[in-house]
């Protein structure tokens, strides 16, 4: 509860800090300290006392700053320690002891980096930049301000970022790099429009106008002065409006537009009086004094000069004092008051000398800084060149090694591919030669077998011709001579036997001349046979049926065809000779995988169990087995007989 109360009071105190009297704040903080709060609150209170004593008593500020530091170290409060170093640094900065200030800032920076307090780090960079700026190490000042700027931009804190940019622009102006200063001020103006910060915008316009003046671009300078005045009027920004009128008046005075210059400077003075801006009043009054001297209104000029000098003395504003004393010496010269002229001329010279000395010191420091910067830049350039060369060497070496590795890989790959190609070629050639050898061998064997076939064929042709001759001779003998009956019968038997041998021979020649026997061939041949048989028995009906599916299926070899033909022939002969059949059906069927051939007659039939297989039936069975098929006889007395051979097609 105590802590909360203290925090609220500190918050209220800090919020109203600028409106309250500093001493009152200091008293209230001391009262809170007397209540013996916790260590962390004590540290905060010491820090605040250090801050507020800064403008009242530097020694007291140092005492409270050191107390805050000591207590922070004792309680290991790193946040408080960093803040204490920061506050003490500010005190040294105020005393223009920049090296001590830098030491404190560095200590604070070290702790804040550990705490990763980025905003605190940015604030320290800003202050360190100011130290460098004041010791004329302007490039370091730019580096530190830029570091702070980067952090504020990352945090999107555009207000602080703009303030830092303003600092950087002022450094550029100090280095007489007006184009860079102008560019930065233009960026700030853009940001000010974006965040609608009109005081910042008017100050930026004022700075832009001054930068253009330095660059002798009066048109743009006037444009930005007027824009700044318009924005300040619209937003009732009296402080900025006073400065703008004063600066614009100075510009008009330098171009000889005295009446307009008086008008603008008067406006500035009235505004500054209204807001009690004493330093501003001093500047405007002295400017007006100068202007009235120019138009010969000495009395009025004297009044303004007196007012300005008093205020300039009060603020030790040397530039204003120089201008004021110079103009006063002119005034007394017009009034022929030699003593006063001498007095004010002496004062003028003293102050101007001191300003001149300061300026010389500053310029010497600037030149030194520029020389150092050039030296450093040269060193950096040399180092960069060396680094670039080393980098190039390393990259060249890397690329060379990479190239060698690549070459080794590609070479290996190429070698492997060539080896693989040769291996494949050899394998292929080997296989090819093996196949060719086998082919030649088999072709030779086939030729030999073909020769045997041809010899058999020639032999059969010859035998066929001789058998025909025998039949013809027997017929001549039968019809040419009157022979006894028994002899005639004998000759007839021989003739019939010879004829059947010839038919058999012809069938064999037919089959052997074919490489394949199709169902059509088989059907034609059997039809031919049936036709001859039909002549012998007129009343018999023959049917020959082939399943449509079988017609287009594979054909038989000549031996298979011959065997099938002989089975059918034998079955028909049996039906005609022994069964007295009136109808004979030859059917080829395909049922699923089973192919069957059947010869069915409607003859007498027989009892299978009571008969013995003769040559005919045995031959049929043997031929069926040669076809790798099953042979079956189904016979019913007085109904007929069926001879069935199946699984023919699979063989």
């Amino acid at each position, binding site marked *: 509860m105590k802590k909360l109360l203290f925090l609220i009071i500190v918050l209220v105190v800090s919020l109203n800090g600028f409106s309250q009297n500093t001493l009152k704040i200091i008293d209230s903080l001391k009262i809170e300290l007397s209540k013996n709060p916790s260590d962390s609150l004590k540290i905060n209170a010491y820090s605040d006392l250090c801050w507020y004593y800064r403008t009242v008593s530097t020694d007291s500020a140092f005492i409270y700053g050191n107390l805050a530091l000591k207590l922070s170290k004792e309680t290991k409060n790193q946040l408080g320690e960093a803040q204490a170093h920061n506050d003490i640094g500010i005190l040294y900065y105020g005393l223009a002891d920049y090296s001590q200030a830098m030491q404190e800032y560095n200590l604070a920076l070290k702790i804040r980096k550990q705490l990763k307090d980025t905003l605190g780090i940015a604030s320290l960079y800003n202050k360190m930049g100011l130290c460098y700026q004041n010791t004329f190490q302007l490039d370091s000042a730019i580096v530190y301000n830029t570091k702070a700027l980067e952090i504020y931009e990352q945090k999107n804190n555009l207000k602080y970022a703009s303030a830092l940019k303003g600092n950087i622009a002022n450094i550029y102006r100090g280095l007489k790099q007006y184009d860079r200063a102008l560019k930065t001020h233009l960026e700030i103006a853009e940001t000010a429009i974006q965040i609608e910060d009109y005081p910042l915008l008017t100050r930026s316009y004022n700075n832009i106008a001054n930068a253009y003046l330095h660059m002798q671009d009066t048109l743009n300078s006037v444009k930005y002065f007027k824009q700044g005045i318009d924005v300040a009027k619209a937003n009732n920004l009296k402080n900025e409006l006073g400065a703008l009128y004063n600066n614009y008046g100075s510009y008009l005075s330098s171009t000889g537009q005295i009446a307009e210059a008086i008008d603008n400077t008067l406006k500035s003075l009235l505004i500054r009086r209204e807001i009690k801006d004493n330093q501003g009043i001093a500047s405007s009054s002295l400017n007006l004094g100068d202007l009235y001297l120019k138009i010969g209104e000495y009395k009025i000029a004297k009044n303004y000069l007196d007012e300005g000098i008093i205020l300039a003395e009060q603020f030790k504003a040397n530039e204003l004092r120089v201008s004021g004393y110079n103009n006063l010496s002119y005034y007394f010269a017009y009034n022929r008051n030699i003593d006063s002229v001498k007095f004010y001329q002496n004062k003028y010279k003293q102050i101007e000398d001191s300003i001149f000395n300061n300026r010389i010191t500053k310029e010497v420091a600037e030149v030194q800084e520029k020389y150092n910067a050039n030296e450093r830049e040269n060193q950096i350039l040399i180092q960069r060149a060396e680094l670039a060369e080393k980098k190039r060497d390393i990259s060249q070496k890397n690329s*060379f090694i990479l190239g060698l590795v690549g070459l080794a890989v590609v070479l290996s790959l190429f070698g492997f591919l060539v080896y693989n190609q040769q291996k494949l070629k050899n394998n292929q050639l080997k296989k*090819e030669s093996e196949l060719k050898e086998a082919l030649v061998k088999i072709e030779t064997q086939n030729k030999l077998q073909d020769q045997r076939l041809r010899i058999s064929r020639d032999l059969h042709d010859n035998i066929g011709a001789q058998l025909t001759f025998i039949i013809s001779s027997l017929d001549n003998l039968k019809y040419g001579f009157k022979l006894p009956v028994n002899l005639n019968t004998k000759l007839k038997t021989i003739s019939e036997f010879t004829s059947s041998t010839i038919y058999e021979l012809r069938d064999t020649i037919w089959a052997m001349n074919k*490489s394949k026997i199709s169902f059509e061939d088989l059907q034609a041949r059997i039809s031919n046979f049936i036709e001859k048989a039909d002549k012998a028995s007129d009343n018999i009906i023959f049917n020959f049926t082939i399943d449509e599916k079988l017609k287009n299926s594979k054909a038989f070899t000549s031996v298979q065809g011959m065997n099938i033909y002989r089975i059918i022939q034998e079955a028909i002969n049996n039906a005609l000779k022994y069964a007295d059949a009136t109808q004979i059906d030859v059917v080829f069927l395909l049922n699923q995988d089973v192919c069957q051939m059947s010869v069915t007659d409607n003859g007498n039939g027989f009892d299978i169990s009571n008969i013995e297989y003769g040559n005919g039936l045995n031959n049929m069975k043997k031929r069926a087995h040669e076809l790798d098929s099953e042979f079956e006889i189904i016979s019913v007395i007085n109904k007929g007989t069926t001879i069935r051979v199946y699984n023919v097609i699979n063989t």
Partner: protein
Amino acid sequence: MDINLLFSWVLYIIIGVLIVLCIITIIATFRDAKVSQEKFIDLREQLGFQKLLQEQVIQKNAYLESYNMTLLNKLFEITKELFLTKKIILEEHFN
């Protein structure tokens, strides 16, 4: 010109040429494999056909061998019958 740079250039050109050669070799290998596969299939078909032919001819010859035996028996029978007939005719004539 820097000798190292020149050497690097030569190195990379050699690598490039070798890569091109690798590609050519791969293409040639594929083409050879395809051609020899086609040849191999063709030869195998021919061999299959010849084997089939051989089988058929062997079957035919085997069949003919057995048939020729049967035929010779029949011829012998016919000759025997003719001689018997001749004998009967001669006996009739001389008696």
